């Protein structure tokens, strides 16, 4: 693959395409699945695609700032997973389902 070659001998474009494909798979999962837990997992997949891109550009520039950003993205992802899953448990307790198609009414 042509383009800018990173220190490890792989081109930057390879990682850009890899991250784009994983991000698209995450988007596909959010649209295609109706299980709310799987949707949350696909959001995690999208966050990880961004992380790959961040690390690739960190290697490209030779600066560590992007890797610190990955660290903070992980912090936010962990917080998001904890709150999202507790909301899901609460919803399941009321509706007895995790189908997002069933969550279309605010009251009964």
């Amino acid at each position, binding site marked *: 693959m042509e383009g800018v070659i990173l220190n490890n001998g792989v081109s930057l474009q390879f990682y850009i395409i890899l991250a784009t494909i994983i991000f*698209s798979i995450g988007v596909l999962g959010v649209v295609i699945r109706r299980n709310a837990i799987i949707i949350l997992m696909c959001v*995690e997949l999208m966050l990880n695609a961004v992380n790959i891109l961040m690390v690739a550009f960190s290697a490209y*520039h030779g600066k*560590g700032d992007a890797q*610190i950003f990955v660290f903070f993205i992980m912090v936010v992802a*962990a917080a998001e*997973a904890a709150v999202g899953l507790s909301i899901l448990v609460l919803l399941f307790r009321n509706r007895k389902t995790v189908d997002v198609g069933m969550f279309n009414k605010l009251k009964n």
Partner: protein
Amino acid sequence: MSTIELIAIILGGLTIGSALMVVLSTHPVRSVLYLIVTFFMISANYIMLNAQFLAIVNILVYAGAIMVLFLFVLMLLNLSKDNEPKTSLLMKIGATIAGGSLLVVLIGALKDASFVTIEQADNTVGLVENLGNLLFNKYVLPFEVSSILFISAMVGAVLLSKKEKQVID
């Protein structure tokens, strides 16, 4: 093609394959397990990019903490293949076209992007020493603020999942 490129392509293919299996497998628990495999593959990609610290943190935080939380909730809710909500075929086709269009547009936009070759890029930035120096000097304030975010998320999660008392009117 050199050996390192071959390894990178195989790793990338495995990452994409396991990520696809997360979306395509119908059993939720199997989805979670495939996502764990995906995170391990992403960690391998980090090691390829000389980001050893992030590779370990990725396994610890994602595969070790977040995915266990997901698995725990799945087991707690007792979800199986039988009560997995079904998506209609039309919806699946539409979603695939939408996702594929997004992929094509993004790759088409990024493919021709030109990058300046940076000479002598430092390849030791991913080591614990350098990242630690950066985290506790330049980014010490965001680091401390993130602890507040964690505390508020924890309090929020506990408050949300606490059983509400019945209101007697």
